[in-house]
């Protein structure tokens, strides 16, 4: 049977989670020849507040483009984590920012506490790169999309002139992620 992998990127407005989702989807769809959809949800209030972006990857047609049972949840804030962990499926993966998420949810899933924002600050220079670092971490932990595809998608999507530093951020995440390596 065909596979369907659901990722939810969550955190707050301004953390670039929609971009992360788009890059992931493009990596899958354009460079890995899979199907992918990406969507986001708008909070009740347009400004600020929590933000979420979902990517579905599949080798078949993707009918319903919203998450139904999440394979992987990334949460960069406590609020986002609290709100979304319950949607993660049994045996799924939850990656949280180690500093921002202090209360760790319990459930039938693997949890990874990674100092994502800190890594971005220290090893890339700005917390702004947390979204790309997170992409690296995901690539390190799960095997849905190839590293090469993600790199190509990053190069194509980020603003001209920032390709280098973004790829560096990806590498930082990748290495960190590989420490937690799991198999898909």
């Amino acid at each position, binding site marked *: 049977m065909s596979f369907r992998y659901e990722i939810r990127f969550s955190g707050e407005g301004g953390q670039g989670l929609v971009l992360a989702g788009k890059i992931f989807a493009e990596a899958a769809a354009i460079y890995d020849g899979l199907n992918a959809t990406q969507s986001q949800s708008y909070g009740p*209030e*347009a*400004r*600020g507040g929590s933000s979420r972006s979902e990517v579905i990857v599949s080798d078949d047609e993707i009918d319903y483009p919203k998450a139904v049972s999440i394979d992987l949840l990334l949460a960069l804030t406590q609020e986002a984590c609290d709100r979304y962990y319950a949607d993660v499926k049994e045996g799924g993966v939850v990656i949280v920012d180690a500093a921002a998420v202090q209360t760790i949810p319990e459930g039938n899933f693997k949890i990874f506490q990674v100092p994502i924002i800190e890594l971005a600050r220290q090893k890339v220079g700005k917390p702004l790169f947390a979204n790309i670092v997170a992409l690296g971490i995901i690539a390190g932990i799960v095997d849905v999309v190839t590293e090469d595809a993600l790199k190509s998608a990053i190069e194509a999507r980020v603003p001209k002139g920032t390709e280098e530093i973004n790829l560096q951020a990806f590498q930082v995440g990748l290495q960190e992620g590989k420490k937690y390596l799991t198999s898909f």
Partner: protein
Amino acid sequence: MFEYEKYIRKNKFPLVWCSGCGDGIVLKALLRAIDSIGLEKENVCMVSGIGCSSRLTGYVDCNTLHTTHGRAITFATGIKMAKPELNVIVITGDGDATAIGGNHYIHAARRNIDLTVIIFNNFIYGMTGGQVSPTTPVGMLASTAPFGNMENTFNISGLAQAAGASFVARGTVYHTVMLEKLIKKAILKNGFSVVEVLSPCPTAFGRRNKSGTIIDMMNEQKDNCVTSARAERMSERELEGKTVIGELVNIDRPECSKQYRKLIERCRSGL
């Protein structure tokens, strides 16, 4: 210390607006103006359209009405004509008041109906993410003006004056104290009154136009504005690039809702 709590719906806070959005500063000036006049909350009715600024009505503990885009003035007209004893204050954005709502704006001015219209001019459509507005300066970027706005802009205040408004003023969020006074005068004026407030939008306007932080945007107001009193003593050339703030128009003309009450009196007395 001013007791804002008397006038706000505390349980709706924090405000929906972005960090640094000027609209909260205007809201505070408005509350102080209302307080200084001594208006009863029961007798104040605030009517807004749709837009970031129009979300203001949700926060004020009085009779509040959040209408449809561009139509706040029409609802307000109905309220004022039906119940003239209410103090009716319209909260609206540059897009709401002068793009989609432009017709009602000039007609209310023509009728000289006793409304106080506070226009939050951030030179952009904030709510919908930064599309060009009739006040976006020429050359500035907006999501629907990716090559820079090339349409001429409205002079919001000049338009109100030409249409027949009784009181017109312009303020900024930097000049907070003056703003409060202008709003107070506008509310007290018997007739159609407009206060155009330059209220920076760091998100939808600022980011795209590299205007810097809200501080940069407020400093620009500090540096670039001259009061109407001073402007009178300046030459055309000196005024170039400057923004005139303060009271711009203040005249007396028959007011619509009162004229109508007179008609009712006339009919009642059978004349």
